[in-house]
């Protein structure tokens, strides 16, 4: 028997109860992540990727609520934790790198204060060694002149440097699981390469598991082991990265792969998936992609169940791409 996964998300549903109606931001999403494994969580803007991450970390606020599902982390169901237990886990065993670095950074505190406090909150070490760790963390994410930069404030950094500081804070306590929400989207390729290198190293050397949320398939291609694709809050397909990119089964994943700029001719309009993402407000049953799907039939007005069309592949679609 293989060891149980580090994280198991099972039938997760997270809805917003707004005046205008129920927004089903996450609606039946399941995946597992093993120690040392990198999972790419991909999907269109607004498909519920960030909210999946927030749910795992217990950061869902009213009017949002987890209405169903389990999130089992190292044997504990996180949906049942109290505030004190969360404080021990968050930033220590599970860290999150937010899409917006200012969710991590405090604008009125110097960078050194912020990283040192993150260390001291979970580790019994001296201020000096906490500061040394802070410095080392900045070097790992490619910040030059770390000593001077430690004494600076967030507004004195460029957009990409702020994000790198947030990544440094996530790495500093050696967590078991890191949830990274599009952290390299605004970084140039050389720095992105360095950060991805650091992330891969951390996962390989210390068995840290990583959930990498992104819409950028080329990052996933080089980084992740497994990929899980979401659409309109729902799970649509998953599998080994190479398999899914080479042979996407869901018409939506197929459309995603075809719209990557490098696959299109210069100056010409890019391939576009026709239509728009459906409003998640009071989204009814049936496959949410059917209005934009070239394969759709009347049957798609029902909700497809999850099948396993090939070993290691999971799919929610009646008419897989041939």
């Amino acid at each position, binding site marked *: 028997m293989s060891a149980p996964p580090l994280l198991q998300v099972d039938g997760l549903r997270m809805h917003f109860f707004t005046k205008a109606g129920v927004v089903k931001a996450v609606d039946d999403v399941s995946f597992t992540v093993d120690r040392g494994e990198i999972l790419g969580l991909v999907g*269109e*803007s*607004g498909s519920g*990727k*960030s909210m999946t991450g927030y749910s795992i970390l217990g950061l869902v606020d009213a009017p949002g609520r987890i209405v169903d599902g389990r999130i089992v982390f190292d044997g504990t169901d996180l949906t049942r934790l109290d505030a004190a237990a969360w404080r021990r886990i968050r930033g220590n065993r599970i860290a999150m790198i937010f*899409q*917006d670095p*200012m969710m991590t950074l405090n604008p*009125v505190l110097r960078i050194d204060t912020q990283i040192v406090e993150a260390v001291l909150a979970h580790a019994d070490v001296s201020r000096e060694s906490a500061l040394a760790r802070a410095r080392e963390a900045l070097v790992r994410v*490619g*910040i*030059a*002149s770390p000593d*001077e*930069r430690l*004494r*600076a*404030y967030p507004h*004195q*950094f*460029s*957009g*990409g*440097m702020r994000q*790198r500081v947030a990544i440094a804070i996530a790495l500093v306590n050696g967590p078991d699981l890191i949830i990274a929400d*599009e952290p390299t*989207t*605004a970084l*140039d*390729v050389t*720095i992105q*390469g*360095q950060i991805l*290198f*650091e992330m*891969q190293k951390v996962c390989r050397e210390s068995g840290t598991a990583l959930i990498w949320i992104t*819409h*950028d*398939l*080329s990052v996933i*291609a*080089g980084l992740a*082991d497994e990929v899980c694709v979401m659409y309109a809050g729902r799970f649509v397909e998953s599998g080994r*990265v*190479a398999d899914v990119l080479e042979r996407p089964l869901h018409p939506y994943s197929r*459309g*995603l792969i075809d*719209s*990557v*700029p*490098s*696959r*299109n001719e*210069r100056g010409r*309009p*890019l391939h*576009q*998936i026709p239509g728009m993402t459906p*409003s998640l*407000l009071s989204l009814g049953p049936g496959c949410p992609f059917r209005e934009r799907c070239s394969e759709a039939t009347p049957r798609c007005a029902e909700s497809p169940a999850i099948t396993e069309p090939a070993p290691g592949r999971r799919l929610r679609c009646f008419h897989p791409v041939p």
Partner: protein
Amino acid sequence: MSAAGPSPVPLLELRGISKQFSSRLDIAARIAARLGAGAGPQTVHALDGVDLSVGAGEVVGLVGESGCGKSTLGRIVARILEPSRGERRWKDRPYSDYESPASRAERLAVQMVFQDPFASLNPRMRIVDVIGEAPVVHGLVPARERDRYVAEVMERVGLDASLAKRFPHQFSGGQRSRIGIARALAVNPRFLVCDEAVAALDVSIQAQVLNLFIRLREEFGLTYLFISHDLGVVRHLSDRVVIMYLGRIVESADSQEVFARPNHPYTQALLAEIPRLEATKRAYIPIKGEIPSPLAPPGGCHFHPRCPHAMPRCQAEAPRLREIAPGHLSACHLNDTP
């Protein structure tokens, strides 16, 4: 002497723009220093003598490493920041000629889409006001037409117009960045500074927004300074690509030329790193050499500590940006060595 655009009189011209940020001017740092935090004044050399001209209807892609000064340059073009030195010109007249209320339309003509949509949206404003306020205030749209106009702009960038009454925090990251694009487009700009405008967008929405940019340019001759780290996007969209390294322009040429014949060793290193979809799992190789700091920029050519071809001269003397082929500028001493 400058990166010449295609038309005789450029729409926008920057001459010798430099920008330093001094921590001495920063209140928070001053208080910290007074409390004995011990940090002496630090000067960040964000931009160092940048010359750039952009012709009407041209799309200039601006690329370079994180922290090299791209946003600073964009903000200076969009009048959000003042340069420490140098001159900005719009339609062959200095920016200072457009300060009067009568020149409001010319000032509105340059708009910026910010890199950080989270910080640039007022959290207490509904989207309909975020997008609709400026066009109404500036008389582009009558107040009673506002909601219809906002709905139209929202749909152009792929946002569901029924969400117009929501507040920014109720949107996902990519939706917020489209709100920023819609806000800039709503005042019918002639020149758009796009700072990582499509970075937070997934490919299908990105394709939709890029197609919108291409269409606006064809229909209205909209001009772009397109800041992006995504070389695939830059290549797709730009006529000309300008590459910056640590506050200086190191290369500038026609887009096809840059990708076919990169001259500067930094550009060559940059192009070697483009991630590809086809790449199956690979080990990322970190950049070689010390990462430079704008707090203490290396002397001579800023790139010399990391350059595989560096010669003694590169440490001593900053290479000038000069034409190495028609319309192709590069700042590297190798071009002097036969």
